[in-house]
């Protein structure tokens, strides 16, 4: 049975003995209650206690295989229990047959408590022994566990234990000196075999320090031979500089007969030095006389490297904290002990090094009062969830000098298995500058918004002025034109007979120029209106719109042979009134510039162009030279002679403004005498 099994076994024995005792007490209580009340529930309790106890006793008998003393104790306990239980059964029986008084008389309370006392004492004695065994077993288990760890890191310690066992423990049960020797020899043989197999360097020395044995590993590591190493030859694998200290330590240990431990380098076969942790313990015989030394040397290169890396990491972390100005903290939530905060954290609270005496309980006092509730609430929430980084908050602190700083902190709450928070680990950064910048941005934004509002108001005002101006133009400029036209006509009508042809022709010129002027004014007004009128976005059926426009155009030119091809199902989101103006202009242009054709073919459709959907109005008219198309969409720009194709040159400018107001663009493709196509998109709204 190994130590671990043994511990388990002892625990089971202890448990069984407790069971025996508690079922016995149960039986006693059951009978007592039954006698006093006659209630059958107590009887049932007695009976179930009886059967439970039988099980417990069997369990105990089987488990308790310890010393003979213990066996005897348990047998005695068994008997006592049997007697007591049959006594109790007798009492119950007499209650049933002869009534309560007889039963009470039969139940001798003095006898009961005496028997129970004896049983309890016996159980406790038995438990004592098991406890002792348990403690032994536990100690061994603990030792083994720690040895396991030790092997992993510095297995030499196990060997020390082994040699101790070999040298000291082995003697306990053996009397003869001879047999001691034999046993030692046997043990040593086994030990040396074992020692050759482990990664540590092991050696043994006489009481005077002369080493008489190294394990195989020593020779492998140092690349030496037994002859070179014998006695004090080992010095050759030492660093000459460190050797005096090693010798001094070792000799001191020899002189005092005390264990010794030191870290020094040893030279490997390849000439490199490795750090070794060397431990030496004295081995004494029965009389306490020091008979030899046992030593192990463990290569701690890896450990050193780990330690170095750890230290380096710590330094790096510290440096990072300093550079990044991160303050880390760790609150112990179980005890309200003050922690050891990073100096950076203290600086964040405006405190001198060592001035941060807050614990998790008092830390909130350092937080600015206005943020205290909020921060506390966040921390409480974090305690509940316990997720990594569960706590996240920004709070203000007021430094002793009155300065207000903004801190941002994040922390994780670590809990035990039952969910109880144990520790909070977190980091804090000073975000005052960022916070100020944020506030500044907010302020600037507010200011900007105010400025935009002012501008908007100004713009609205100038829009109103423009509207008033347009109204004025519309009303005031047209009135005199009407006069010029009207009186010219009056002249023609009333005095036409007295005028010669040339005079009449002149008057007709006056009238036609007046018409042109009127058209110009109308177009200008429309252009200004499409620019300033508020847009009402809606779903617009462009197919229906185009059909309506072309029908009107057909009515206006019944003498023309025109074919309109309009794609079905063209829908866009836009301002219907503006889109009607744009399409009217495009279709009117198409009709105008197909004038010389016998048959005009005008198409309206939609195609994907450069990744976006574009609408087009295409005609088979006279087209134009793309070289002159640059200013096509500017107001008053014309590519044809007014005598050929009359117009004000404002139509396409109007189209462009409308398209732009929809977030789209417009462009033309044309060739002289081979028609023209006007493309437009309606931006995101299409």
């Amino acid at each position: 049975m190994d130590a671990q099994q043994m511990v388990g076994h002892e625990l089971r024995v202890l448990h069984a003995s407790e069971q025996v005792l508690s079922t016995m007490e149960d039986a006693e209580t059951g009978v007592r209650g039954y006698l006093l009340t006659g209630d059958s529930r107590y009887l049932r309790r007695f009976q179930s206690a009886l059967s439970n106890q039988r099980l417990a006793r069997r369990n105990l008998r089987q488990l308790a295989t310890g010393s003979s003393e213990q066996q005897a104790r348990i047998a005695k306990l068994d008997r006592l229990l049997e007697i007591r239980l049959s006594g109790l059964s007798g009492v119950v029986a007499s209650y049933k047959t002869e009534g309560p008084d007889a039963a009470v008389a039969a139940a001798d309370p003095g006898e009961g408590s005496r028997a129970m006392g004896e049983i309890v004492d016996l159980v406790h004695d038995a438990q004592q022994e098991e406890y002792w065994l348990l403690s032994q077993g536990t100690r061994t288990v603990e030792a083994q566990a720690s040895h396991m760890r030790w092997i992993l890191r510095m297995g030499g310690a196990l060997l020390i234990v082994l040699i101790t066992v070999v040298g000291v423990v082995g003697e306990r049960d053996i009397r003869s000196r001879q047999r001691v020797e034999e046993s030692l020899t046997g043990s040593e043989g086994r030990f040396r075999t074992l020692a050759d197999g482990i990664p540590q360097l092991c050696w043994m020395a006489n009481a005077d320090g002369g080493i008489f044995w190294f394990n195989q590993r020593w020779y492998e590591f140092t690349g030496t031979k037994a002859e070179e190493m014998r006695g004090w030859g080992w010095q050759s694998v030492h660093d000459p500089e460190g050797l005096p200290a090693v010798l001094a330590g070792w000799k001191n240990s020899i002189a005092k007969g005390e264990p010794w431990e030191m870290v020094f380098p040893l030279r490997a076969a390849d000439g490199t030095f490795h750090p070794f942790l060397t431990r030496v313990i004295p081995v004494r015989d029965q009389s306490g006389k020091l008979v030899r030394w046992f030593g192990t040397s463990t290569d701690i290169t890896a450990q050193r490297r780990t330690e170095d890396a750890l230290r380096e990491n710590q330094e790096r972390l510290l440096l990072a904290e300093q550079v990044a100005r991160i303050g880390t903290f760790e609150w112990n939530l179980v005890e309200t002990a003050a922690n050891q905060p990073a100096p950076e954290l203290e600086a964040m609270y405006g405190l001198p090094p060592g001035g941060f005496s807050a614990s998790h309980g008092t830390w909130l006092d350092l937080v600015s009062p206005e943020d205290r509730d909020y921060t506390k609430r966040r921390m409480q929430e974090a305690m509940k969830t316990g997720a990594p980084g569960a706590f996240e908050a920004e709070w203000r602190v007021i430094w002793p000098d009155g300065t207000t700083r903004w801190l941002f902190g994040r922390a994780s709450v670590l809990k035990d298995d039952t969910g109880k928070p144990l520790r909070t680990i977190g980091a804090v950064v000073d975000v005052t500058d960022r916070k100020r910048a944020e506030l500044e941005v907010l302020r600037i934004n507010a200011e900007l918004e105010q400025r935009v509002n002012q501008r908007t108001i100004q713009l609205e005002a100038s829009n109103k002025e423009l509207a008033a101006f347009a109204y004025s133009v519309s009303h005031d400029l047209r009135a005199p034109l009407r006069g010029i036209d009207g009186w010219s006509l009056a002249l023609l009508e009333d005095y036409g007979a007295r005028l010669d042809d040339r005079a009449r022709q002149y008057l007709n010129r006056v009238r036609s120029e007046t018409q042109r002027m009127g058209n110009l004014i109308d177009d200008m007004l429309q252009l200004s209106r499409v620019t300033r009128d508020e847009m009402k976005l809606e779903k617009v059926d462009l197919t229906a719109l185009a059909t309506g426009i072309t029908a009107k155009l057909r009515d206006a030119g019944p003498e023309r042979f025109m074919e309109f091809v309009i794609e079905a199902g063209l829908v866009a989101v836009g301002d219907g009134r503006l889109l009607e103006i744009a399409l009217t202009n495009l279709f009117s242009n198409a009709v105008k510039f197909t004038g010389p054709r016998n048959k005009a073919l005008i198409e309206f459709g939609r195609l994907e162009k450069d990744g976006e959907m574009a609408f087009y109005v295409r005609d088979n008219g006279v087209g134009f030279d793309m070289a002159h198309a640059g200013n096509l969409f500017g107001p008053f720009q014309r590519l044809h002679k007014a005598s050929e194709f009359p117009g004000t040159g404002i139509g396409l400018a109007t189209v462009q403004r409308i398209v732009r107001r929809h977030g789209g663009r417009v462009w033309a493709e044309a060739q002289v005498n081979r028609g023209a196509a006007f493309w437009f998109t309606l931006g995101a709204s299409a």
Partner: protein
Amino acid sequence: MSTHRAILLVEDNPSDADLTRRAFAIGRIVNELVVVEDGQDAMDYLRGEGSWAGRNVSETPALILLDLKLPRVPGLEVLRMIRADARIRRVPVVILTSSKEEEDVGAGYDLGVNSYVRKPVDFKEFQTVIGNLGMYWLLLNEPNPPVK
């Protein structure tokens, strides 16, 4: 035809007023054309006040042609006052103006105008419009009974 009821033209531009008169003449509309030059004058005529004091206000015009841009009292205000005055509110009013601002058109109808006509630049067209107006309001339309 309520033959001899006058037509009231509210127009501050004498050239336009004369052209309108000419158009009526060409259109053979023989009703007397009373021209007033501003809104105040128009209201005085209708109410028999001011320079029109003593006029028999029960002789309401057969038709009022109202320009919008007028000195003193603007056209829409004149319209509002006409519609608010029980004695004259049934007189048909036609806004005859250069403006086709939507706002004006809407406001005109809101105030109960009977027609809204934009004066074209082309006098021939203007003449046609005037002719049609006379034909409709003076001949075809059943005249309103005078308010008692």
